[in-house]
């Protein structure tokens, strides 16, 4: 592996996931995408209705 690849692929932290000791290991971008889309689907099919969220 070349130095450039080391810099680009190994040392670089995930762009949107700040490194935190002891924190969750989940990629927050994907987590936000999945959670957000699931919630959108729940809203669209009516499971999360108008009156549920205060």
């Amino acid at each position: 592996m070349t130095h450039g690849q080391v810099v680009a692929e190994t040392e670089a932290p995930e762009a949107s996931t700040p490194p935190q000791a002891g924190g969750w290991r989940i990629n927050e971008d994907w987590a936000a995408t999945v959670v957000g889309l699931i919630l959108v689907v729940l809203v669209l099919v009516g499971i999360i209705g108008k009156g549920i969220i205060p």
Partner: protein
Amino acid sequence: MSRAEAVRPAAPALATEGFARWGWTAASIILLLLLGGLVRFLDTNVATWFPKVAWLKSVEFPVYAIAVGLVGGVVLGALGLRDRLSAAFRTEFLIKTGLVLLGASINLAIIARAAGPAFVQSVVLISSVFLLSWWVGGRFGLDPKLRAVLSAAVSICGVSAAIAAAGAVAARKEQLVYVTSLVILFALPSIFIQPWLAQQLGLSHVVAGAWIGGNIDTTAAVTAAGTIVGDDALKIAAIVKQTQNALMGVVAVLLTAYFVFRVERVEGVSVGLGALWQRFPKFILGFIGASALATLFINASADTKGAGDIVATAGTNLRIWFFILAFVCIGLEFRPADVREAGVRPVAVFAVATIGNLVLALLLALLLFSNFHLS
């Protein structure tokens, strides 16, 4: 007893540690929800408690959320509990989930129409502000790696860009901490100052949104400022900011190449294009996906107005909760000590670049979004 068994911690101790960690995480989530509930309560009631104070009616929930977070952070810091209770303080996750939900309330056609001017604005702003900050950093004698991290942060999207740039140029951890502290130091007042300036300048909500999205560094602060101006401003600010976010990968790859080939002059090196995808903010796909889903749902419904109401009411309330929790986290995570350690020179460079960004973003917003209509 083998050597491995002697070194390995006892199982009951590990179990106790695990329970304690889960306990603190649960306490952290409960605390965050309670603070979010307090914000919702204040947002609903403060103006009614003081009916004679007219300006209180225009105070939006981000103001209460950040104030509650800041006070909460001070209290937790004084009690020595902030680090233990920080597991649920996930500003990035909460704001990005809220933005995916925001996507559901924007018609896909609007995103497609706004993407063009937003892309032009982002490319011009990122390159100009990055080069300005890089040049000023050089005049102030900053280390090249610190200049790169700082310039990426001020020109693209704050903390995320700083992290991407720090990885690209292999910056030291302290340099990253300096810059992320500066980002928060400048973003917090911008949340309140820029909406006020937009009002004083008489900008339309669309132009104000484009200005906010182009200037303020962190996505969370952009969302807060856009919310204070209004719903249309929030939509445009989110589209502009996410276009900038999408360009983060390109900047990170260019920075990697520049440092490898020009600054460090390493022989026989290649920079993988896979880094582009690695650094692409994937939640943008969720934002567009949510918009597509909601647009399809509304268009396919027999009762288009009713379907639109469902998305508008339930989706908006849900999104507001995520934003409230994210803004509370901004306050909770703010640490004045980190900012004090940053020193004067990086602050001066950041200030100059921010002023340049403010002026240029206003000009571009006026030029590209004056004739843009959401409906």
